[in-house]
């Protein structure tokens, strides 16, 4: 690569691209050329930086100065001041919530400080579209080692000893899965990478593929060598256009360099990868439904009398691993199982990537050692709750997971502890909720999602989830009855027991966990016809507090129903018959005069 004095690492993850990263790139290139700096300073597009809340973000190397929330109009000043004259622009730096001084360096920002990167090891340091960048950071050395100095048996032993468990949700030991597939002799075996990330609010897998596609390719090739497979398949949803594009490009580059194809690294090992685009049904992330989808059948789970590692895709031994699991494998091979096993808790080794979203200040992608507490993730890394409201709950594990209350904030996050608490690790979605979130409404939201996404094969899931949705909707609408809570619990248990796949088996979790920790909210809805968080429209009334209202008319001007009346500089009133409870008046009021009851 040409010699430059400065690399501008501009995030090109989906979040930053949506916020105009490519317009920033064009503006940077234009301004650099204006100052004749194009031969001194390079603009490098990277994968997701993780700090999505502040996008578009830019990290200046070598100094490590972090700029955020960039707009095109900032660029001329930034280029002249910092990149030409060497004076960093503090106005574009990150100022932590509740502080006044901006923090110039990325490594000093709390969001980044507490993270430990393994799956995201190349985050922001490489251009995902250049295989040379990946190699320069130690890429493909794990594969080289696996092929030239290890037997397949030794590869499996190394992965087993590392304690790596599946990052897609269930936490099955990866080494055991590989060993089973290796033990079944067959002319053809498959390695499938599950990139059908379906949980609302989850984007770990997308970001890994976008930011470091070769890590996944290398992990798949190592898995192929270990179990004796020469065919890999990535099942990825079509809603991930940037990930798809970078993955396809990476596969082409790997073939060109002989890192995929026949005789990899001059050995007798052959391996190639094809990409299968899914249409984005939640159920396709389930192993047997995914298999059916690839085989051209409707994506319905089937009963697993035999393991997929014996008879999987097209009845051949098949290993199905999640994106993050595969991305970690090259590091384990290169650095050894002891290194990996030294990180994490007794039964959950290594790190886990979470997508931290919801009412948290620093939303984004974080990777922490297993055993990090929820409090550290939400408050130290996430910066706490937006608008200084108070924390109410965190939903882990996606729709199959559960909501955990503030009394569990000090829970160390690992597979066992989350399951004990009534939630699950899942693929790593983490949705933070504040005091203004109604837990009954949240349960309703997830049930609605699951009702839509149920494949319909098992009656318990198809009809049971639908009835649960109706019951919870009734409670939100103020039509709840005393018997609804025990009925929900009974039905939830029935859906768990009588559904064939894990999606049905976990579908009642959002209801059961909110009933476990937030039962009083259900009771308030049913007995007092009151929504304590002020969310469920049928149960709330907006009013204007005459003591606080200044008569500025801001609410009246914004009300889509023209339901607010009153004279200027006099307290306003809301005509309840017209009010649709959209909450705009409350959002715009500068005096906190609009109350919800």
């Amino acid at each position, binding site marked *: *690569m*040409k*010699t*430059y*004095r*400065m*690399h501008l*690492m501009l995030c090109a993850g989906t979040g930053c691209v949506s916020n105009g990263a490519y317009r920033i790139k064009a503006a940077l290139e234009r301004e650099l050329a204006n100052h*004749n700096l194009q*031969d*001194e300073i390079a603009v490098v597009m990277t994968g997701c930086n993780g700090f999505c809340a502040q996008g578009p973000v830019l990290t200046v*190397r*070598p*100094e*490590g100065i972090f700029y955020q929330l960039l707009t095109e109009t900032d660029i001329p000043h930034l280029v002249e001041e910092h*990149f*030409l*004259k*060497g*004076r960093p622009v503090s106005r574009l730096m990150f100022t932590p919530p509740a502080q006044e001084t901006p923090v110039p360096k990325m490594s000093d920002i709390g969001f980044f400080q507490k993270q430990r990167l393994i799956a995201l090891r190349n985050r922001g*340091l490489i251009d995902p579209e250049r295989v*040379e*960048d990946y*190699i*320069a*950071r*130690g890429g*493909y*050395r794990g594969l*080289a080692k696996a*092929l*030239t100095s290890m037997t397949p048996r030794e590869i499996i032993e190394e992965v087993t000893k590392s304690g790596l468990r599946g990052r897609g949700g269930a936490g099955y030991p990866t080494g055991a899965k590989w060993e089973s597939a290796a033990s079944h002799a067959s002319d053809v075996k498959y390695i499938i990478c599950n990139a059908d990330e379906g949980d609302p609010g989850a984007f770990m897998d997308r970001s890994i593929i976008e930011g470091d596609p070769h890590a996944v390719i290398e992990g798949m090739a190592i898995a192929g060598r270990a179990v004796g497979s020469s065919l890999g398949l990535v099942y990825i949803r079509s809603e991930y256009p940037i990930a798809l594009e970078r993955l396809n490009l990476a596969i082409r580059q790997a073939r*060109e*360099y*002989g*890192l995929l*194809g026949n*005789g990899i*690294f*001059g050995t007798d090992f052959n391996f190639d990868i094809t990409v299968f685009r899914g249409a984005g049904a939640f159920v396709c992330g389930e192993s047997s439904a995914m298999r059916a989808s690839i085989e051209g059948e409707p994506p319905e789970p089937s009963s697993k009398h035999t393991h997929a590692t014996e008879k999987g895709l097209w009845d051949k031994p098949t290993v199905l691993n999640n994106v993050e699991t595969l991305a970690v494998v090259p590091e384990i091979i290169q650095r050894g199982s002891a290194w990996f096993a030294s990180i994490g808790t007794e039964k959950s080794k290594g790190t886990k990537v979470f997508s931290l979203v919801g009412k948290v200040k620093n939303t984004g992608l974080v990777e922490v050692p297993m055993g990090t507490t929820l409090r550290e993730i939400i408050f130290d890394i996430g910066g706490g709750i937006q608008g200084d409201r108070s924390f109410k709950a965190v939903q882990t594990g996606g729709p199959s997971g559960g909501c955990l209350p503030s009394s569990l904030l000090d829970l160390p996050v690992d597979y066992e502890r989350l399951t004990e608490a009534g939630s699950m690790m899942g693929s790593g979605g983490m949705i933070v909720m504040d005091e203004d979130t109604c837990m009954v409404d949240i349960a309703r939201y997830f049930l609605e999602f699951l009702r839509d996404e149920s494949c319909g094969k098992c009656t318990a899931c198809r009809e049971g989830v639908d009835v649960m949705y109706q019951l919870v909707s009734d409670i939100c609408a103020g039509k709840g009855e005393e018997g609804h809570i025990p009925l929900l619990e009974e039905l939830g248990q029935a859906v768990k027991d009588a559904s064939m796949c894990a999606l049905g088996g976990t579908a009642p979790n959002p209801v059961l966990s909110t009933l476990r920790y937030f039962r009083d909210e259900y009771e308030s809805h049913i007995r007092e016809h009151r929504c304590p968080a002020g969310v469920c429209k049928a149960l709330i009334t907006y009013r204007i507090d005459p003591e606080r209202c200044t008569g500025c008319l801001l609410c009246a001007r914004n009300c889509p129903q023209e339901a607010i009346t009153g004279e200027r500089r006099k307290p306003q009133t809301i005509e309840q018959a017209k009010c649709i409870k959209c909450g705009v008046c409350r959002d715009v009021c500068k005096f906190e005069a609009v109350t919800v009851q």
Partner: protein
Amino acid sequence: MAKLRPEDLDGIAESMRRAMSLREGAGRARLTVHMGTCGIAAGARKIMTALLRCLEESGASGVILTTSGCAGLCSREPMMTVELVGEAPVKYVDLTEDKVKRIFTEHVLGGRIVREDALAIGSEQTV
């Protein structure tokens, strides 16, 4: 493209070494060219170009080239400060492209200060 052998990985990594050490921020030497209006008018941009060429030709890594504002001694521009890890910074003044080449070879790579072009060793006192 020829198929890679395991040993080729090192060659590719080597060709990217300077870029990577720059991104990782690992440097043993930091060269700061003063780019105030006075510096630019006196030819600081040419000094930077010459330094980049030195870096390219020598293949050295761990050398960080950066800029800063006016150093306060406008009459002696172009100026640059050379900081080697563990050593006091050295300010060079009245630079030309030829002088820069010599400083790069002798001081940055060789560790010997070029005394005739050096203004001072050490930083100003700050209160």
